[in-house]
């Protein structure tokens, strides 16, 4: 049997923690091997020395009093009671510790055996844990507050997380969808696509900004931009899939609308260019016909008169002059026919009169006429009734309106007040009166008189056919066109168009 003292010393020596025994004077009476390793002192350097040598210097003044207090009322307990305790190695390094105090009665009096545990690693782990919890909370907050839907699923497509925006965009609450298949938000026919995305991501691929469609809880279909990436655990094992979905329905819609309106505008411009070329030709043919028809009419009158004069003459020569006059008349008829054919050639085919909504015509004309005029900041007033229908060739009347709108915009270029008004109202004789007025400088009397004459212009670069063509077009529709002063002192153009019979009557 071994001496109990020897047994005790062996047990202390084998303990996994540093064990230090002090006597009532605070001197170190015994240390174990672990103490040597933890503190860096040899046993001989410690024995007999005050315990304070193992403490940071800042505790050396207060510690002896605490130590005496313990000796006065010794009981086994952890030291420090809620305070962070620190010890000091030989090299001066401080480290966090936990200390258990055990008073032992001996023949020589009470001694205290302390078990000292270096908790540096534990403290570091705790700190790391706190930091990672903080990080996780921060990430969760980011995910929750994201404008994008952020959805987590396992490898089988079962939803494991569903943020606030996912609820907002797709209309399912977290409770409704957690644990269910993510395929619930696939529109009919899109299951295969979702499977394919899942498969690609489980192979480690990423899917970035993929444009597709998804179905919401209320059945509506939305455009989304989807980014999908794999989720790995700490050991690098693929454990799930994260999807970030952005609702791009509105963006897609406005992009489409923009494209539509741009191509519509281009179409209108092309049509207008085509017709304005035809109209310029038509106007010239018309002006030519007018100019030539007048002398032809005079010729016709003179010949008829002359023929009548000769008929009464008994002179035999008169018969031959009559013959010659008849032949001259035939030639005049021929000239007239050439002119008529020319007019007919230009006029025919281009006038396709249909029932058109005047408001729509005016809107298109405003869009076209104000191209490039944005910087002029023109306020456009519309006094149009959506129910007004006219029987017109759409492109021709658009040309008239565009002409007037452009003229008005140009007339106001240097004015402070820039208001363009387009109005329409039915008149008593089943016509629609359309007015385009501006707040420009107006038309001087001498200009107004010549306004509709072909090749009359006040513009430096104008050809002077716009208004003349416009009037011709309006007249070819059975209407008329005139210019006057607007109440603001600007120009006011008025033209009339035939009202379209109501559709019910046409049937």
């Amino acid at each position, binding site marked *: 049997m071994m001496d109990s003292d020897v047994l005790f010393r062996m047990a202390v020596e084998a303990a996994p923690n540093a064990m230090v025994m002090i006597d009532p004077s605070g001197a170190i009476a015994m240390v174990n091997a672990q103490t040597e390793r933890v503190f860096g002192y040899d046993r001989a350097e410690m024995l007999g020395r005050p315990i304070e040598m193992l403490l940071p210097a800042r505790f050396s003044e207060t510690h002896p009093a605490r130590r005496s207090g313990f000796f006065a009322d010794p009981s086994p307990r952890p030291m420090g009671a809620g305070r962070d305790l620190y010890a000091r190695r030989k090299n001066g390094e401080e480290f966090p510790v936990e200390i258990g105090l055990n008073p032992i009665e001996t023949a020589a009096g009470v001694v205290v055996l302390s078990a000292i545990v270096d908790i540096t690693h534990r403290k570091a782990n705790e700190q790391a844990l706190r930091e990672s919890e903080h990080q996780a909370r921060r990430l969760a907050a980011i995910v929750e507050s994201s404008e994008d839907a952020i959805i987590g699923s396992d490898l089988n497509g079962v939803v494991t997380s569903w943020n606030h925006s996912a609820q907002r965009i797709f209309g399912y609450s977290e409770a409704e969808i957690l644990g269910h298949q993510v395929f619930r938000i696939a529109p009919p026919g899109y299951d295969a696509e979702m499977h394919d995305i899942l498969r690609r991501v489980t192979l480690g691929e990423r899917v970035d900004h993929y444009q597709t469609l998804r179905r919401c809880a209320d059945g509506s279909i939305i455009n989304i931009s989807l980014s999908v990436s794999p989720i790995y655990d700490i050991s690098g094992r693929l454990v799930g899939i994260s999807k970030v979905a952005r609702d791009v329905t509105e963006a897609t819609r406005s992009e489409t609308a923009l494209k539509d309106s741009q191509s519509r505008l281009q179409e209108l411009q092309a049509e207008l260019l085509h017709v304005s070329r035809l109209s310029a030709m038509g106007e010239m043919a018309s002006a030519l016909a007018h100019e030539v028809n*007048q002398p*032809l*009419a*005079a010729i016709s*009158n003179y010949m*008829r*008169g002359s023929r009548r*004069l000769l008929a*009464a003459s008994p002179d035999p020569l008169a018969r031959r002059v009559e013959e010659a006059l008849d032949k001259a008349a035939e030639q005049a008829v021929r000239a007239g026919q050439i002119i008529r054919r020319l007019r007919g050639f230009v006029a025919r085919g281009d006038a396709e009169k249909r029932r058109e909504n005047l408001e729509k015509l005016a809107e298109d004309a405003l869009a076209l006429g104000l191209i490039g005029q944005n910087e002029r900041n023109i306020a456009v007033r519309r006094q149009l009734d959506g129910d007004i229908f006219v029987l017109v060739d759409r492109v021709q009347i658009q040309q008239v309106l565009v002409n007037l709108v452009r003229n008005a915009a140009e007339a106001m270029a240097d004015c402070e007040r820039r208001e363009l008004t387009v109005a329409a109202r039915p008149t008593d004789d089943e016509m629609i009166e359309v007015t385009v007025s501006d707040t420009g400088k107006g038309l001087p009397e001498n200009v107004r*008189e010549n306004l509709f004459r072909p090749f009359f212009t006040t513009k430096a670069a104008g050809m002077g056919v716009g208004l003349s063509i416009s009037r011709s077009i309006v007249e070819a529709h059975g209407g008329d066109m005139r210019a006057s002063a607007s109440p603001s002192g600007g120009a006011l153009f008025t033209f009339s168009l035939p009202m379209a019979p109501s559709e019910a009557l046409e049937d």
Partner: protein
Amino acid sequence: MQERPRAGTIYVVDDDPDVLSSLRFLFEIEGFQVKTFADGALLLASPLPRPEDCLLIDYKLGHLDGLEVVRRLRELKVATPVVLITIYEGLEKKAAAAGVQDVLQKPHFEENVVSRVEAAMSAARRAAAP
């Protein structure tokens, strides 16, 4: 050589002086009195035509067009028959609404202007007869 003077004066309004004088020539040969005007305002400022006369008027006439002149004459209770001469097509309905009896297309080779005017005048006489 007005062989047989006829009742009624032909009022002619046209802004083309050559057309105007050719019509004067034609109608004088037919024995009519002819009065010519370069625009509608001049006509309206002169003694107005009587029901037994005839007005031959161009459609396109400076700032007061032929139909407007006719409208004003009708407002003034002038019952004179009117023949509109024009190079434009499709004016018949508008012309009738303004109070025009006949529309003649320029340069009117195929049509006899004189007989159209005469027809309008005799129709007016018949209408005025008790």
